[in-house]
C-alpha cells in the first residue's frame, strides 16, 4: 500500500533544516499503525508527505503502486480526494458550513449531485451518532463531536487510507478513548489502513504497530 524508500526532506526557509534523513517504511493494506516520536522529530512532515500535501526532496514514495512524485496539483488533488482521508488535531472543519455540509464537501469535488451527497453525508453522520447535529455549525459542537464530523468527512469518499495527525491531541482523555475506539472499529470493519501520528503512548498502545521516529530516522518498528 505505502512504500517509502530513503525519503529525505529539508526545510529551507532561512536556516536549512534536514527533517527527514532517509525514511524507509512499508505499510500494508489494512494495517493499524501509529507513528511516535518527540515533538519536532518530523512526524507531521512524514504524514504530510504520505498525504501528498507536501513534497519530498529525494527517495521514492509509492502509493498503491503509483509513484508519487512531481504530480501536478490537479493530480494530487484527485489522489487526495479519492484515496486519502485526513483527520487533524484541530479538526479543520469549515466554520461557516454546517456539520452535514462539511461532510458533503469531498463529494462535491467529485461532482456528486447535491441530493445524493446530502443523503450519504447524513448516513455517515448517523453512523457516528451525530444525526441531530447535522445542521449545527462547528462552533456549536464539542471537540469530540467536531472530530467525529471530521472522521465522517474523511470516510465519505471510501478512502483506502486514513491519515490522522494527533487526532486526540485536543480532546480530553475520555473522548480520546472513544475516538480511538472508533478508528479501531473502522479499521476492523471497513479494512481501512490507518496511520496515526501521536506522542501519546496510551494512544499508540491501542494500535497494532508502533513506529518510533527520532531525529529524522525510524529507530524502532
Amino acid at each position: 500500500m505505502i512504500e517509502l524508500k530513503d525519503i529525505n526532506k529539508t526545510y529551507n526557509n532561512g536556516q536549512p533544516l534536514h527533517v527527514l534523513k532517509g525514511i524507509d517504511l512499508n505499510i500494508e493494506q489494512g494495517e493499524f499503525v501509529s507513528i511516535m516520536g518527540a515533538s519536532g522529530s518530523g512526524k507531521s512532515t512524514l504524514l504530510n508527505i504520505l498525504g501528498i500535501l507536501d513534497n519530498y526532496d529525494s527517495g521514492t514514495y509509492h502509493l498503491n503502486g503509483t509513484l508519487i512524485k512531481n504530480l501536478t496539483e490537479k493530480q494530487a488533488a484527485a489522489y487526495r480526494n479519492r484515496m486519502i482521508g485526513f483527520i487533524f488535531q484541530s479538526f479543520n472543519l469549515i466554520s461557516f458550513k454546517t456539520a452535514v455540509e462539511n461532510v458533503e464537501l469531498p463529494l462535491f469535488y467529485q461532482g456528486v449531485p447535491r441530493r445524493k451527497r446530502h443523503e450519504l453525508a447524513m448516513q455517515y453522520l448517523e453512523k457516528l451518532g451525530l444525526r441531530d447535529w447535522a445542521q449545527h455549525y462547528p462552533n456549536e459542537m464539542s471537540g469530540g463531536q467536531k472530530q467525529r464530523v471530521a472522521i465522517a468527512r474523511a470516510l465519505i469518499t471510501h478512502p483506502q487510507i486514513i491519515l490522522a495527525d494527533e487526532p486526540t491531541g485536543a480532546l480530553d482523555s475520555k473522548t480520546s478513548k472513544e475516538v480511538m475506539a472508533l478508528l479501531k472499529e473502522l479499521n476492523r470493519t471497513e479494512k481501512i489502513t490507518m496511520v496515526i501520528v501521536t506522542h501519546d503512548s496510551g494512544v499508540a498502545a491501542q494500535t497494532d504497530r508502533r513506529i518510533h521516529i527520532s531525529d529524522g530516522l525510524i529507530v524502532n518498528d
Partner: protein
Amino acid sequence: MKDLFVEIWESVRRNKLRTCLTGLAVSWGIFMLIVLLGAGNGLLNAFSEQGGTFATNSMMVGGGWTSKPYDGLAQGRRIVLDDKDIEVTRGKNFKGIVDKVASTVGASDTVVLGTKHVRGYIEGNFPARMEMEKIPLTHGRFINDKDITDQRKVVVLPDNMIRILFGEKVDLASVIGKRVKINNLQFQIVGIVRANEMQDNNLFYAPYTTVKTIYAKGKEIDDLTFTFHGLETEEENEAFEKNFKAIINKLHRAAPDDESAIWIWNRFTQNMQMNKASGILTIALWVLGIFTLLGGIVGVSNIMLITVKERTHEFGIRKAIGAAPGDISKLIITESIVITAFFGYIGMVLGMVACEILDATAGHNVTEVMGMQMQLLKNPTVGVDVALEATLLLIIAGTIAGFFPARKATKVRPIEALNAN
C-alpha cells in the same frame, strides 16, 4: 452551478459592508459610462439632425471670387453661375456620375396679404430640389413640373411666415389654395414647409421659371445642386471636385486650378467626415467610461485579494479534501464576476434612468448659439446594444478583477495553506 452560487453567497454574506463599498465603485463606473455615452449620443443626434437636411449624395455649387489673375483678367473678380454651367454639369463630361441637376435663382421680396406683410427670399426651384435638399413639406405639395412649364404663380411658404400673415392660431391646412401678393402679382399658396430654425432669412419657394421671368434674371442662377453616384472615397470625391472646378472655371475665364472661383459644398464627404468624427467621439467616451470603471475593477480585485488572504486556511482544507486548483479559482473568479455584474447592473440601470431624466429636461432645450437656434442634446439615451456591450464589459472586468486573487489562492501549496492562520 447552484452550489457555486451558494458558496459565493456564503462568502459575500460574511463581508457585506466591504463588498458593498467596493461594489459601489463599480456601479459608479458603469453609471458614468452609460451617462457619458448617452450624452454623447444626444450630442451626435442633435448634430446629425441639423446637418442631415439634405440628400447625402449631393453637391451644391455656387459662384465665388477669383483668387488669381488669368487670361488677361485681374484677380478678385466675381463669378456668377449661369445656364451654361447647368448644361455642362449635365453633359458628357460627368456622364455616369452626375444624376439629377437642379438650379435655383432668387431675390429678396415681400409677401403681402391685405395689410400684413413679411419680408423674405423667394427662391425659384425645380421639383427635384425637394428631395435633394430634404425640404420638410408639412402641408400641400411642392413645385411640380406643370408649375415649371406653365410658369405658374404658386408659392410654398414656411409655417412661420404663414402665421405672420394669417395669424398665430391659423389652421395651416386651411391656408392651402389662398392667395398672397408678391411683387404686385397674385400667387397661390400650394404648400407649407417647416421653418428652418437655424436660419431666419424667411426662405420660400416658387417655380424656377416663374422667378426667372418675373425678376428678369436672364441666364444667371444662384446656385446649382446635383446628385451623384459612384464616388465612394474621399480621394475620389476630391479628384472629381478638382476636375469639376477646372471645367467650370474655364467657362468663366478663371484659372483651372483657382480654388475659390466657384465653391462646392459636398454633402457626401461632409457626411463621411461627420461619421468619422462621431466614431472618434464615441470611442473617446468609451475610453473615458472604461477608465472610470477601471477604478471599480481595481477595488473589486483588492477586496478579492483580501478575501483570498483571509480564506487561505479554508482553501487549504478544501485542497486537502480534494479541491483542484481549478475549483478554487472558479470560486474566486465567479465571485468576482457576480459582484461586478450585480453592482454594475445597478449602475447601468441608474445610468439609463439618468439618461431618461436628461432626455426629459435638457433633451428638449433649444439654445441660441451665435444667432442660430440649436438643440444641444437630442434623445440622449443609449440603446440595447450598448447595454449588452456594457454587460459583456462587466463580465470581462469581473474576470480580470478575479484573476490575480485566484492565481494567488491556487499558488499557495496545500500544506502552507493548511498551516496558515
